[in-house]
């Protein structure tokens, strides 16, 4: 199948200039990143602060242009100015701060903002908005002011805003970083549903490993490079490597590693509490 997102040898420098426009310093944020994502995949990008994961996210929406290498979104090169709006429509983006991305004063007005910008005919808009609000599980708040919503609800409004543009791909740049645990769960559940039900490609950028459990694939980033990648099972079995990259390993993964190291036969790919309980029970029964 043809990739929806592909980067080749992607590199990006943040260049600081002084008042005279002379280069003061160059900071390499991304360095030689190759990723490829197929339609319908749920891909997580995991990394600590400063690992370059947000910079990568901004390349997928043509908000940043590569210093070197190339990014293709659905076959379109992000450096092609003529395709920029089609690229942004294809790969919608949800940002970290829930307040700073909502434009409308009423929820449904905000969801309509994207399609309005695309020039979608007025008759078609209410249907799209309703559909998107329902898919993001936020339909009951359609007439509320965004100021009266919780952080998790606001993020779901932003997700609905992307859906209303009929994007085939949604890039979420640390959507849960500013939310409480309850709001985090709601957002992740909404994202999973979109991927599963609507078959929308999801790229979830995060530093919470728990949120990557349901991903098809994980890219782990460090120092602007992809340190390693694989399925959650493969990635989670490399506990030492993850901890070296200053990532917090979920308690279940840590516990199963501890048990394994102390001689129990616990498989290396256990991600959930139930899975670990089963494995321990099996081990216990085998022992008696």
């Amino acid at each position, binding site marked *: 199948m043809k990739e929806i997102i592909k980067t080749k040898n992607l590199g990006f420098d943040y260049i600081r200039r002084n008042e005279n426009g002379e280069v003061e310093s160059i900071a390499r944020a991304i360095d030689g990143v190759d990723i490829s994502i197929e339609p319908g995949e749920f891909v997580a990008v995991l990394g600590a602060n400063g690992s370059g994961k947000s910079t990568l996210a901004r390349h997928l929406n043509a908000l940043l242009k590569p210093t070197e290498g190339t990014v293709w979104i659905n076959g379109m090169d992000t450096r092609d100015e003529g395709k920029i709006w089609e690229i942004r429509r294809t790969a919608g983006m949800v940002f970290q701060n829930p307040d700073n991305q909502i*434009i409308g004063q009423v929820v449904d007005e905000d969801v309509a903002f994207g399609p309005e910008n695309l020039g979608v005919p*007025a008759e078609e808009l209410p249907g799209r908005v309703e559909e998107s609000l329902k898919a993001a599980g936020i339909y009951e708040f359609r007439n509320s002011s965004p100021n009266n919503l919780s952080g998790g609800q606001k993020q779901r409004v932003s997700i609905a805003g992307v859906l209303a543009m009929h994007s085939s791909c949604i890039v979420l740049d640390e959507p849960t970083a500013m939310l409480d645990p309850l709001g985090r769960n709601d957002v992740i559940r909404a994202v999973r549903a979109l991927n599963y039900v609507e078959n929308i490609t999801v790229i979830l950028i995060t530093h919470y490993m728990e949120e990557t459990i349901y991903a098809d694939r994980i890219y782990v980033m460090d120092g602007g490079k992809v340190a390693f990648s694989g399925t959650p099972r493969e990635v989670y079995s490399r506990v030492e490597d993850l901890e070296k990259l200053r990532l917090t390993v979920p308690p279940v993964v840590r516990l199963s590693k501890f048990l394994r190291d102390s001689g129990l036969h616990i498989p290396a790919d256990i991600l959930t509490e139930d899975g670990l309980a089963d494995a321990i029970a099996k081990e216990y029964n085998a022992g008696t």
Partner: protein
Amino acid sequence: MKGVVLGQYYPGDSLIHSLDPRVKIVSTFVFIISLFVVDNVPGYAVTALFLVSAVALSKVPVARLIKGLSGILVLMVFTAVFNLFLTPGEVVFSFYSLQITREGIIVTVKMLVRLVFLIMGSSLMTYTTTPSALADALESLMKPLKVVKVPVHEISMMISIALRFIPILAEEADIIIKAQKARCADFDTGSVIKRAKAMIPVLVPLFVSAFRRANDLAVAMEARCYRGGDNRTRMRPLTYCARDYRAYAVDAALLLGCILTRVIL
């Protein structure tokens, strides 16, 4: 500060509420012009009739409208005092060097009636129209100015964004004030200058944060394909229906009536 309500919108579903916001802005202007056209009792009666029926149709409690007048109480007192004492004419009452004239009384009453009607009329508009509807209507009404390169859409977009962010920034200011108070900042005592200076540690972080938010918002708008007002559609485009045309007819009748009272009587 939580749940700050902007403007003074009074939710309802009356005839006035359901009018197109453009009609309400135009009607308010026509009403204000009429107030300054009329100059005799029948004229004032016509404008009063218009105002009273609009208020009755809007179902906004009269007490609310009267409460709105408290904001201009000082202005009313000044207007009254100056007109009362400084209008030359036939003296009806005097003490020491101050004189009240017959003309003075008439002018004062007229000015006060005008002021009260003006404030009531314009607050009726803000009571029955949401701020975002007003911004939309302004955009639509100012469209002809595009010919002379006035950035009409941008102005309206700025008003909408400001309306969206004022409650957020108000809440943030509240948080900063509390944070500074927790660090023993004193906002409540001392001279005016001292208190104004005490606000600096609040305003600086607030400004920094506002700029950061503006930057985030600009990026988010770009990511959502915002590229100015051209080729943009609206989910709820403003459209006139029969009642809006009838309202315009009433406006025309009001203005005509007021001119007639001035010319004939």
